[in-house]
């Protein structure tokens, strides 16, 4: 990369340190680096590991913030919402039903244009009880103005948390952002992480400036008065416009990230793996990339040209770019670690969105939906092989059921 030349590798090594840490710890460190002012915690697995790390940083004097253990997720999210309205950089998070318990607060936060950054340790929505990953928790807010991003590794978790602050707190956006980390597979799994240098983080991440929206006696504004049908639609449109500006701000943030830290993520919105010459692709989010990539390498050895597209940003959804990329392949399989009961073709959320993006752009290829890995069940190599076979058959013109549950006991 041309920009990386500006920072000699030797200096890089001196300032960055390398640690073996989990996805949760990586996000806690991002909060420390971002000099977060107010953090609220409430226990629910698996996200709560991030707060265990945060509390240690606070206890050891390594982080200066108000650290509040709330009495429920509703308060957890309401506390940071108000703190953020008063000019504080904030962090919180939840999982599964905890996230749903906060739903009212989640609903109003984007409408108030408050850039809360949260971590979702994705978890099944019990009942019946399950700690494992499912994406329905974070996806529940997909229509409300939350920016939603899924990460795959501890490194990506740390980097994306910094990027999330930069994007959310950009005046053009001022919308909250939730970073989804698959429960257990990422929240509790360690990886080697390059921890960026504080000075560079300062360079990358400007101070949060709420400007003329700040709630402070020097700026006596009235926030969220009763608007009714008289003005609500115009205000909704403003929020929508903010979301529409978000992709450009995301692009700028990734470009600047690469320049300052020397780490590139390529296309910010989705990662492509072995797609250049692929005939068919699988699409998915989060840590299922691991079994998918392993299987693809096996399939490639057998001469089968399969690729993988891992979605990072689900909101905003990069529909045009994705449609352009996926339009190159003969058939597309979308792996949903979620369900959307009663949806078109009984597909999962992601498959429905991918179809909307592709067919809206005039694509004709078959798009097959797979429901897999619910409740934390592993998506295995044989599962991925099975999905690849189905997509190959679809590519050859053999009609396939539009949605199939994979790895299900009969």
């Amino acid at each position, binding site marked *: 990369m041309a920009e990386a030349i500006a920072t000699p590798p030797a200096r890089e090594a001196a300032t960055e340190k390398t640690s073996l840490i989990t996805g949760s710890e990586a996000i806690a460190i991002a909060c420390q680096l971002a000099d977060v002012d107010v953090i609220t915690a409430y226990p629910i697995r698996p996200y709560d590991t991030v707060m265990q790390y945060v509390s240690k940083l606070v206890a050891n004097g390594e982080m*200066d913030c*108000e650290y509040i253990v709330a009495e429920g997720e509703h*308060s957890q999210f309401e*506390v940071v919402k108000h703190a953020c309205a*008063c000019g504080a950089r904030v962090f919180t998070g939840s999982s599964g039903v905890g996230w749903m318990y906060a739903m009212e607060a989640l609903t109003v936060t984007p409408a108030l244009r408050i850039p809360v950054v949260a971590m979702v340790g994705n978890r099944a929505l019990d009942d019946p009880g399950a700690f494992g990953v499912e994406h329905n928790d974070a996806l529940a807010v997909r229509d409300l103005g939350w920016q939603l991003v899924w990460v795959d590794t501890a490194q990506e978790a740390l980097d994306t948390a910094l990027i999330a602050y930069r994007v959310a707190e950009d005046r053009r956006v001022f919308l909250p952002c939730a970073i989804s980390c698959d429960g257990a597979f990422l929240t509790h799994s360690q990886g080697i992480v390059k921890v960026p240098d504080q000075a560079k983080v300062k360079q990358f991440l400007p101070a949060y400036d709420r400007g003329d929206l700040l709630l*402070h006696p020097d700026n006596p504004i009235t*926030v969220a008065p009763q608007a009714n049908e008289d003005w609500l639609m115009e205000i909704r449109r403003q929020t929508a416009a903010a979301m529409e500006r978000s992709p450009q701000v995301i692009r700028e943030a990734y470009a600047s990230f690469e320049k300052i830290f020397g780490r590139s993520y390529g296309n910010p919105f989705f990662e492509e793996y072995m797609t250049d010459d692929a005939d068919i692709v699988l699409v998915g989010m989060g840590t299922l990339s691991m079994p998918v990539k392993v299987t693809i390498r096996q399939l490639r050895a057998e001469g089968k040209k399969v690729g993988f597209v891992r979605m990072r940003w689900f909101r905003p959804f990069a529909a045009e770019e994705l449609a352009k990329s996926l339009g190159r392949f003969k058939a597309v399989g979308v792996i949903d670690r979620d369900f959307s009961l009663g949806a078109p073709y009984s597909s999962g959320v992601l498959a429905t969105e991918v179809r909307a993006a592709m067919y809206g752009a005039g694509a004709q290829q078959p798009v097959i939906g797979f429901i897999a890995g619910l409740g934390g069940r592993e998506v295995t190599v044989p599962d991925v092989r099975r999905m690849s076979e189905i997509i190959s058959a679809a590519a050859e013109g053999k009609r396939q059921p539009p949605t199939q549950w994979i790895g299900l006991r009969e």
Partner: protein
Amino acid sequence: MAVSDRELAELTHLKTPQKLDPFKGVKKLPLEEYFTSGHRTCQGCESALVMKLMVKAAGPRTIVLGSTGCMYVANTTYYSTPWVVPWMHTQLGSSGSAALGASAAVRALIRKKKIKDEPINIIAFCGDGGGADMGVSGISATLTHPEYNCLILMYDNESYANTDIQLSGSTPYGAHTTFSPPGTKKRIMHHRWKKNFAAMMAAGHPTCRFVSTVCMSYPVLAMNAVRRALSIGGPTFIHSLDPCPKGWDYDPMLSHELGEIAVETGIWPLWQVEDGKLALIGKTRDIADNRFKRRPVRDYLLKQGRFAHFTDDDIDYFQAKVDETWKKWVVPGVIPIAKEVDNDAPPV
């Protein structure tokens, strides 16, 4: 039990919490208003008066957070806000977390030198529905955080007024609301006794330094309670009883008088707990010291349409329950625990 001033100063990082001396009578009140024209509450709305006098007592260096309810919907319309101080809507059950969040932000930003170091009053208000029903968990949590300066004020018009007068946990026994209409088979649809909310807050939060009941029929007392609550440090709680002409069904000109009668009948005792010490106030103190004879509750009930279906028996029952609070409670009018159980039969 109470935190010392020095400890509190350390905890709060505000060397001097705001010093708001008591007002010395109506004629000594400042002229400035921070809640002005623009609101659309009913004529005779006492809750609107609470808003006005609450911020008058607090002054301009104040942030107000208001829960959903009449004091939001009828009060704060887009393009015609009555608030001169910064104001933000908060969700129905969020007054506790709103106060906590704003106070935490101010504390962190001052400590980290991101904003000017000065005392800023944080007030979150809620109605009885948003507070004593939905908001209990959040309010209670906030009152356990001694390091955050804030006041939670619950204006109690004894119903979910904004949604057309439904019964709440603070609605008095037997009252006619749109969820408890007297019918042909059932005269009394609401059988629950009103929650004793302020005492619950005082008794349940030993490090909360100030809890008080108020009524705007005694405006200087009420404003001074606000000033004390904002000066003492840490989270504080005020519970105000607000006659509501629409919900209680009476002529708006009676608002002020009904507040007085509520106190004089002993239905609404005025008291405060400061650093664990209880003081009965005004007429309530006179009742306790036998200087003033409680008026019969009939005087109060019969002035309000919401009790128009009451029979003499209902009124007697209501009177007996109020008498109980004065004769049997361990702290008359405040703590609803009897000294001894009636007809107590020891186990054989």
